[in-house]
């Protein structure tokens, strides 16, 4: 194998590759990137067995071939080479080593045979549809903060994507929850997605997907079965296993009968919560919202730090209520709301509260109160 790649192109491809490759690997070849030099197209692949990425990079191939080299090492080398470098790769006779040359630098990397590189099992991906980059970004951004990190409830360690109806309109929905809060985002159902199974995208896949989405404006081709999903970009293809579990019946926990409606200016609210939370105990981050006609009082007390209180204007006409929340959760949600107004729909101090953008109903958040 012999080829030349321009540094910037290689670096961009390797940046995606190296974040898929785990830092610690018990299986040596999983630490490697597979370089496949075709006629005048070069592809780079990496996998952690659950998630695989293939990047296409432009390059001049003098002699086709395949080889694998340590991904992080290669990334570090390419990162440190001067901008504009032309990087040459060449395998030695026995394929046990790869020589990399750029300008006056020369590196010899130990290689592992390309035949040993694991391939993601094939199988049909019967459901195919297209998503605009912006739409997919929104689905992820509005929900991913609520993903659970607790391994015991592994079926919550991702975003649940499914097709359903919302007030008579067919929608594609993304839902994530950690049991304390829930985030639900929806968009009009794209053609081809009518019969998709409900699937749970793993957290790591979402993080990698999100990085790729930052660099594109074009539409993404999505294909999935009930065990695997593939996202095809212009220059990259991400294939991932899905979480093998059942997402809980989340509709059940979204209250519909809450009657106490509070509206606040979202920015003012977030800033006040942030200030008051300075005092809240490190562990609970609990703040208390005391709501009465036209006014919201946010307060926190901690046996060590003291107390804080702040009043803000609010639209509220119901009976007075006091309810406690984790300040961090309030801020996470406030950050998702792009409009001016945030609407809280509450029942009582022990029942879930619904939060929405007052002007946009596509996203919905449910928040479990805390005992304060």
């Amino acid at each position, binding site marked *: 194998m012999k080829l030349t790649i321009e540094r910037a192109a290689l670096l961009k491809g390797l940046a995606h590759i190296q974040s898929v490759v785990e830092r*610690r*690997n018990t299986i040596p070849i999983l630490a490697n990137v597979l370089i496949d030099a075709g006629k005048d197209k070069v592809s780079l692949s990496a996998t952690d067995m659950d998630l695989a990425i293939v990047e296409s990079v432009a390059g001049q191939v003098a002699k086709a071939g395949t080889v694998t080299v340590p991904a992080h090492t290669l990334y570090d080398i390419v990162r440190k080479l001067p901008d504009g470098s032309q990087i040459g790769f060449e395998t030695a006779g026995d394929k046990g080593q790869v020589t990399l040359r750029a300008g006056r630098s020369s590196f010899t990397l130990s290689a*592992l045979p390309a035949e040993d590189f694991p391939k993601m099992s094939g199988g049909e991906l019967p459901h195919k549809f297209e998503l605009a980059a912006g739409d997919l970004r929104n689905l992820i951004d509005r929900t991913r903060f609520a993903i659970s990190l607790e*391994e*015991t409830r592994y079926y919550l360690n991702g975003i649940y994507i499914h097709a359903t109806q919302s007030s008579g309109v067919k929608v594609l929905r993304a839902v994530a929850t950690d*049991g304390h809060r*829930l985030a639900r985002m929806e968009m009009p159902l794209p053609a081809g997605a009518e019969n998709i199974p409900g699937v749970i995208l793993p957290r790591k896949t979402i993080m990698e997907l999100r990085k790729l989405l930052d660099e594109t404006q074009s539409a993404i081709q999505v294909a999935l079965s009930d065990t695997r999903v593939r996202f095809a970009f212009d220059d990259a293809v991400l294939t991932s296993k899905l979480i093998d579990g059942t997402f809980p019946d989340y509709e059940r926990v979204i209250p519909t009968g809450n009657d106490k409606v509070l509206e606040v200016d979202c920015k003012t609210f977030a800033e006040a919560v942030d200030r008051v939370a300075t005092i809240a105990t490190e*562990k609970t981050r609990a703040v208390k919202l005391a709501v009465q006609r036209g006014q919201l009082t946010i307060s926190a007390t901690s046996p060590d730090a003291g107390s804080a209180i702040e009043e803000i204007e609010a639209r509220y006409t119901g009976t007075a209520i006091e309810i406690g929340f*984790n300040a961090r959760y309030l801020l996470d949600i406030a950050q998702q709301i792009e409009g001016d107004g945030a609407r809280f729909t509450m029942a009582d101090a022990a029942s879930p509260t619904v939060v929405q953008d007052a002007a946009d109903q596509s996203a919905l958040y449910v928040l*479990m109160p805390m005992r304060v």
Partner: protein
Amino acid sequence: MSGEHDGGPPPGLCRDCLAPIEAGAEVDRCPRCGSARLLRHPEIADLTLAHIDCDAFYASIEKRDDPALADRPVIVGGGTRGVVSTACYIARRFGVHSAMPMFKALKACPQAVVIRPDMAKYAAASRQVRAIFAAATPLVEPVSLDEAYLDLSGTQAVHGRSAAAVLAGVARDVERHVGITVSIGLSWSKFLAKLASEMDKPRGFGVIGRAEATALLGPRPVRAIPGVGPKLDMRLAADGIRRIGDLQALGPEALRARYGTMGAWLAERAFGRDGRTVEPDHDARGISAETTFARDLEGVEPIAAELWPLCETVSRRLKKAGLAGRSVVLKLRRADFRLLTRRRTLAEPTQLAERIWETAHALLAGAVGTGRFRLVGVGLADLSDATTADTPDLFSQATESRAIEQAIDAVRAKFGDGAITRGRGFRPGSIRRAKTLR
């Protein structure tokens, strides 16, 4: 610094009276007390990492408590399980060893005295031994009841003598105050310290210095490296690597190229290097419960049945103390006594039996695989007060569990523990107890 000593005898000390022996001193016995138990090694002043192992621990304690057993072969073990827990050194001469089925052991050594294990007694002796270790250094990492690593670096100034002399003192104190003997290994890495303690058993003191490590490891089989199991051994053998010397000959680069990160790890061990440090027990303030089975168990479900009551016990203790824990620790002991622990940290502290169970059960399912086990234990670590524990959950597992457990706790407080139980903890017999309480 030590190093070469021009061919003369290296420096050392007397293992009985702890008197130092100068380098070059041509003596066979201690000039001070006349003991022949001298320990000499060129690097003796520089080595500070030790592994200490009590010799035939259970059997030695039984012999201590019954002097009539002193000269007889003693086997601790038996019961319905029918395997040897510990054999004394006399019994070992007949080929008896730990984890051997009792009938085989008695065939090899029919005259042996068989004693049922008395764990409470051994645990008490273990506490005494650990107290003596703790007086030598705060950096004590217990591995089991009868085994620990000690890091004595920086203790010279405190004790006014070398680490080797302090360790000889530890051995002497254990003999005097606990009445059993220990074997000490002194070196510069955990791996070598353990190896050194095995070189000179019983009542031994093995030393492995930096200069000799490579030569000493060379002829040993690769299986001598802890972590090299049968599978890896076979794989290495297939590549023509049988002895540690074969690894040394290949060198770190070739090993890394061939086996990746594992190759790098093998290269470290092949030269005696072991980056692990001595970690004093952090879980000392956790709350835990464990049970030894009437007979060895295998598979998830039989062990899980033993696990549930332990979760309830731990939960009850937490609730009583007003505490909650964030890390669930599962402990398993294999039929051959090897210990297996698994730990998982939760998103928030808990004191609910249901959540402890959920987590411990998941850990159990991932840990048992094949094999037989004699003990299971569960504990909670990272304790904090219960106010931040088990916050309300949308999917109400925690919320409902909290309500259910409060109800169960209330019934038990009034009618006794047997009055109510979850289906999971139900055993024939428990219901009878409940009836009589009416």
